[in-house]
């Protein structure tokens, strides 16, 4: 039996080896774009980690004194929650335990405002506990988990659109911080990290498919108008160089969105 198992495993390995060697270059550009529905949206820390490898960014300088106001509007709260979770990743990069704990509590408060408190209670506690122990990789993981739990809870409540707004809020805040840091010490290899046109295109499609009522939300209107301005600046073609001026423009556009989401310019 044991030998048979070994044989099966060896056969499996051989099959896979064969697959590996005959894998052909696939002209994936030929996929009809219309059928590309979903994209894995990275969490902000995925790009922040690279930035850390390329220098010593001033993460502390990117932390906000206030994460913004909760207006009670569910779309605004979902977007705000996304930006606050992104702030959590920034605080982790800054290794600022106190700020991480505050953000953990902010996440819980905002989650309560849109009826998904139960989904993040445990995470919020873990964030605080692990920040106390300065276990940064675990705190990062808890913020990722909080994001997934919130989105999962929203989906359970049939609020897929709000779940997408949480992701979008995180991407906008992450982009603001990324462009701010790249702008402070411009280098082409750092600017390449902004080459994310599929994400803009993905979010735009999601917003376009949202119910009319949500599309009329002033924040959603503003974001839908801004994303097409950001998209060409991210380099639509592979290998396109993103200039310092483009980085500045993206930062300005994303900062305006963060201000609007946080209700800090009203």
């Amino acid at each position: 039996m044991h030998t048979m198992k070994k044989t099966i495993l060896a056969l499996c390995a051989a099959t896979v080896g064969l697959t590996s060697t005959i894998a052909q270059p696939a002209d994936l550009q030929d996929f009809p774009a219309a059928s590309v529905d979903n994209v894995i949206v990275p969490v902000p820390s995925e790009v922040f980690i690279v930035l850390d490898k390329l220098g010593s960014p001033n993460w502390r300088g990117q932390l906000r004194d206030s994460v913004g106001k909760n207006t009670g509007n569910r779309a605004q709260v979902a977007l705000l929650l996304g930006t606050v979770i992104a702030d959590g990743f920034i605080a982790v990069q800054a290794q600022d335990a106190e700020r991480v704990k505050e953000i953990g509590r902010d996440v819980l408060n905002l989650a309560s405002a849109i009826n998904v408190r139960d989904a993040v209670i445990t995470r919020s506690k873990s964030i605080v506990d692990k920040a106390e122990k300065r276990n940064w990789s675990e705190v990062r993981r808890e913020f990722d988990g909080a994001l997934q739990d919130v989105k999962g809870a929203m989906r359970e409540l049939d609020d897929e659109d709000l779940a997408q707004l949480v992701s979008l809020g995180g991407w906008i805040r992450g982009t603001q911080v990324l462009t701010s840091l790249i702008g402070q010490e411009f280098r082409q290899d750092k600017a390449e990290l902004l080459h994310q046109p599929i994400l803009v295109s993905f979010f735009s499609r999601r917003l376009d498919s949202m119910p009319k009522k949500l599309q009329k939300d002033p924040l959603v209107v503003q974001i839908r108008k801004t994303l097409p301005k950001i998209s060409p600046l991210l380099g639509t073609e592979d290998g396109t160089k993103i200039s310092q001026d483009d980085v500045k423009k993206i930062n300005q556009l994303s900062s305006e969105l963060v201000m609007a989401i946080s209700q800090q310019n009203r």
Partner: protein
Amino acid sequence: MKPLLKFLLAAVALAPLALSDVCATVNDALSFAYEGATPYVKQGFTFREDAWGGDLGLGDKKAVRTQLFKGNSYWFIVGTDIKNAVVTVHVYDPKGQLVDADFWHRGRFCGAFVEPKQTGAYWAIVTVEKSPSERTRWALVYGLR
């Protein structure tokens, strides 16, 4: 275009599913995916809490589009709960070139390692190469450092 390539393109279903969207039994496949990821966690890779999965017929493929960043290293791990099934994952760059720097398959899980040469959109393609079942459940997780 080569017939094999046409077949590949035609066979690939393009809508990946967030794991929460599919049936609970995929959780078993996810357990295997996380088991496959364990050695890399010890090596400092951080695996996302998010996961993707579903079920596929023999020979079927599923493409998951993902944004990767130059400077990170990634492990994509796929697990299945079907005994004796062979499910593989390979990663392709925006031009459709295979970019796995390493690939392995052991029992109910497999992994592909990628160090992107450029930042951009990549494709993780999951294939059911062999299976005793009509439908094979799978789950994909990825980690980076």
